[in-house]
C-alpha cells in the first residue's frame, strides 16, 4: 500500500475517544538538572556535542533573556510560570546510536503506532516505483522526521531526499554537519532578542527540524514532523529552520499530540522560514495538544514564534494551521514580505472548547514593492473558552502597491464562550489597498435541527456544520492532513453542546 494511502487509512481509524492521544510511554530518560542557569545551557549544548559557536549563541540568548519580562498583552490568563521549576532537557536514553528503525526502542515505535504514524511502512522506506503513466508517487510521499521528546530518534526517506539534494535532518545534526548554513540562517528571521519566549528558546532549544532545498529543486515529498511531549514537567523548545533557495519549493507538515496529564507543560517553539527569489514554502500545522481536563486543569501552554521571511523577489510563504489543542495558545505565524512581488498567506482554524484560551493570528509586514498578502481566519469558540484573533498588517513607506485581504469569521457555540477580533492595520504609503472583513455568528439551532432531523446526532451535526464553516481553510491542507484535521475538529468539539 502506498504510504499516503496508508496514512489516510490509519487516520480513518482514529476512533473518537475523548482524548485518545492521552497516553504515556514508559521510557527512561536522561534529564538536565531542574531549573535554568548557564549550567543548564551548557549541559544541553554538551549533550548535543555542539561546536563552541553554538554554545556562545545560546549563552548570549540566555543572558539577554535574564533582562526580559514575560509579555502580558495577549488575552490569556494563567498562573505565573516558575521557570526555575522546570526541566529544560530530556532525552530518551538510547541503548546505542541507531542506524535503522529496527533498532529503535519498541516502546517508542508502539507510541507512534498508536498515533497512526506509518513509521514502519516498508513502501515508505524503500520507495514505491511508479507504474508507467502514473503520477510519480514520490510526490505524494511523506517523510517523517520523528521528534520524540527532545531528541529525533528516526529519520526516514533520507536517501531519496539526498538524491534531490534536499537536506532534511534534526537541527542538532545540521549544526554539526552544515554549520555554514545554520550559522548563516539561524536567528536571521527570529533574532535571539525577538521576544521573551523566542529568546528562551534560543538559549535552551532541544531539537527540531532543519530543511534546506537547493536552487531550482522541487522537494519530492511532503516533509513532516510529529512532535510529542512526553516528559513530565519538561519544557519543550523545538527549533525549526527551513530554507528554500532560489526557485525551489517545499511543503512541510507539522502535527502534534501530547499525553494527558495534570501539570501544565510549557512549549515555546521557534520556526524560521526563509524563501529566496521565486521560492515557495508551504507550512501546515495540525496542533492537538492536551487542552486540560473538564475543569480546565492541566493542558499545554503553547507560546510559539513562527515567522517566514520572503527574502527574495516573487517568493511566497503560506501558513496553514489547525489549532485544536493546548490550554493556552499564543501564536502568530507571520510573513515579512521583503522581496518585490512576494506574497504571504495565512489560513487558520482555531478551535477552543472547555477552558481553552486562544490568542492567535498573524502579522503581514509589507516591505517590498507590489507585495500581497491574504489572511483567512476561522475561529470557533465553544464551552467556556476565549478565542481571539489578533492580526497586524503593515505597509512600509517604500512598499508601494501593497495589497492585503483579510477575512476573519468567528463562530460561537453556546453562550459561555467569547470570540474577539483585534485587527491592526497600518499603511505608511497611500498606494496600499487593505481590505478587512469580519463576521461573528452563533451556530444556528435551526441548522443543527435540520441535520438532526436527517439522522445526525447533536455532536455529529456540530462537527458537520463546523467543518463546513472552516472549509476554505481545510482545502489549503495537503489531503492526508485534511482528513486528520476534519476528525480532530469533530473530536475537539465533543461535549460542546448540552
Amino acid at each position, binding site marked *: 500500500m502506498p504510504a499516503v494511502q496508508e496514512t489516510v487509512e490509519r487516520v480513518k481509524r482514529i476512533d473518537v475517544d475523548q482524548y485518545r492521544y492521552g497516553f504515556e510511554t514508559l521510557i527512561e530518560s536522561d534529564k538536565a538538572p531542574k531549573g535554568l542557569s548557564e549550567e543548564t545551557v551548557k549541559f544541553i549544548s554538551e549533550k548535543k556535542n555542539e561546536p563552541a559557536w553554538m554554545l556562545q549563541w545560546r549563552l548570549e540568548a540566555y543572558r539577554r533573556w535574564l533582562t526580559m519580562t514575560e509579555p502580558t498583552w495577549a488575552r490569556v490568563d494563567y498562573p505565573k510560570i516558575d521557570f526555575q521549576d522546570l526541566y529544560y532537557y530530556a532525552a530518551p536514553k538510547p541503548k546505542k546510536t541507531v542506524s535503522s528503525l529496527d533498532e529503535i526502542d519498541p516502546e517508542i515505535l508502539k507510541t507512534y503506532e498508536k498515533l497512526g504514524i506509518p513509521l514502519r511502512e516498508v513502501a515508505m522506506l524503500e520507495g514505491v516505483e511508479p507504474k508507467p503513466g502514473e503520477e510519480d508517487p514520490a510526490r505524494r510521499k511523506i517523510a517523517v522526521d520523528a521528534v520524540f521528546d527532545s531528541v529525533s530518534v528516526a529519520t526516514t526517506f533520507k536517501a531519496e531526499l539526498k538524491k534531490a539534494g534536499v537536506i532534511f535532518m534534526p537541527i542538532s545534526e545540521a549544526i554539526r554537519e552544515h554549520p555554514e548554513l545554520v550559522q548563516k540562517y539561524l536567528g536571521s528571521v527570529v533574532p535571539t532578542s525577538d521576544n521573551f519566549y523566542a529568546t528562551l528558546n534560543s538559549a535552551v532549544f532541544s531539537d527540531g527540524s532543519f530543511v534546506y532545498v537547493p536552487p531550482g529543486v522541487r522537494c519530492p515529498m511532503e516533509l513532516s514532523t510529529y512532535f510529542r511531549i512526553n516528559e513530565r514537567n519538561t519544557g519543550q523548545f523545538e527549533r525549526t529552520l527551513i530554507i528554500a533557495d532560489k526557485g525551489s519549493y517545499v511543503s512541510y507538515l507539522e502535527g502534534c499530540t501530547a499525553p494527558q496529564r495534570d501539570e501544565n507543560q510549557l512549549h515555546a517553539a521557534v520556526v524560521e522560514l526563509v524563501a529566496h527569489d521565486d521560492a515557495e514554502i508551504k507550512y501546515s500545522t495540525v496542533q492537538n495538544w492536551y487542552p486540560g481536563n473538564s475543569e480546565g486543569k492541566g493542558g499545554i501552554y503553547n507560546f510559539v514564534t513562527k515567522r517566514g521571511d520572503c527574502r527574495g523577489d516573487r517568493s511566497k510563504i503560506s501558513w496553514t494551521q489547525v489549532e485544536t489543542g493546548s490550554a493556552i495558545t499564543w501564536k502568530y505565524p507571520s510573513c515579512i514580505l521583503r522581496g518585490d512581488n512576494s506574497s504571504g498567506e495565512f489560513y487558520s482554524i482555531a478551535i477552543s472548547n472547555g477552558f481553552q484560551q486562544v490568542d492567535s493570528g498573524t502579522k503581514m509586514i509589507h516591505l517590498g514593492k507590489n507585495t500581497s498578502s491574504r489572511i483567512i481566519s476561522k475561529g470557533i469558540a465553544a464551552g467556556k473558552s476565549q478565542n481571539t484573533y489578533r492580526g497586524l498588517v503593515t505597509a512600509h513607506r517604500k512598499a508601494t502597491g501593497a495589497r492585503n485581504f483579510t477575512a476573519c469569521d468567528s463562530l460561537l457555540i453556546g453562550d459561555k464562550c467569547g470570540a474577539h477580533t483585534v485587527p491592526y492595520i497600518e499603511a505608511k504609503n497611500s498606494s496600499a489597498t487593505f481590505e478587512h472583513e469580519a463576521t461573528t455568528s452563533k451556530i444556528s439551532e435551526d441548522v443543527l435541527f435540520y*441535520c*438532526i*432531523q*436527517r439522522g445526525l446526532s447533536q455532536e455529529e451535526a456540530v462537527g*458537520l*456544520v463546523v467543518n*463546513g464553516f472552516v472549509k476554505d481553510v481545510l482545502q489549503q491542507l495537503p489531503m492526508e492532513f485534511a482528513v486528520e484535521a476534519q476528525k480532530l475538529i469533530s473530536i475537539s468539539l465533543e461535549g460542546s453542546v448540552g
Partner: protein
Amino acid sequence: MALLEVKDLKVRVEEREILHGLTLTVNEGEIHAIMGPNGSGKSTLSHVIAGKPGYEVTDGQILFMGEDLLEMAPEERAAKGVFLAFQYPVEIPGVTTMNFLRTALNAQRKARGETELMVPDFLKKVREVSKSLNIPQDMLKRGVNVGFSGGEKKRNEVLQMALFEPSLCILDEMDSGLDIDALRIAADGVNALHSPKRAMVVITHYQRLLNYIVPDFVHVMSKGRVVKSGAKDLALELEESGYAQYEDA
C-alpha cells in the same frame, strides 16, 4: 395498521399554548392533507413530531408504530423513519449536498444497525433520484441549499425523502415557491414514493397541490386543533368558502 397516533396533544411554546388537544391518526399507506389558516399550528405539529427542541408537551401522547415517539431523541426518530420536509429549509455553507446526503444516510443506517452504503451504490442511487426530480448534478456539489432558489430547496427536500425512504413523510408546504412545472415534478417525486407501507402528511394552503397528490383524508386545523376531517372533497369546499366557518370552532 396505525403508523402515527397523536392523542389529545397539548403543546406550549414559551409559556403560550399553541396546540390545545390535537388528535390525528395516520395509517400505513394513507395520504393525509392538513389545511388551515396561518398560525393555526400546522408547522408546530410537524416540529413536535420531528422532535425540535423548544416545544413543551404538556399533555397527550404521540405513538409511532405503537412506540412512544416523545421518548425518542430526534435523530432516533429520523432513523426509525420520520421525515420532515421543512417549510423553510436551511442553508449549510461549506457542506456539499452530496456529502450531507451521504453523512445523513449513513448515520441513519448505522442507527438501524445496517452497514454503510458503498460509495458506488450511493452515487448510483443519488443520480437516479436527482434525475427524476430534474436536479442537476452540479447542484449536488454546492453547499446544502446555499444559493438555491426557493423551488430548488423544496426539490432538495424531496430528493432526501426519496433517498432515505422514510415510513412517515411530513411535507410542510412543499408547494410554496414552486412554479407549475416544478410542482408537478416534485409531486411526481412524492407520488413515486407512495407505497402501502408508507404514509404521507401533506400540509398545504392550496387545493391545487392535492390535484397532484391525492389525499385519502383532509383535516382542517384551526387554533391548535383539528376541527374537521373529511375526504378529498373537503379541500374543494375549503377553497370555495374559506376558513371563516371554522374560526370560532
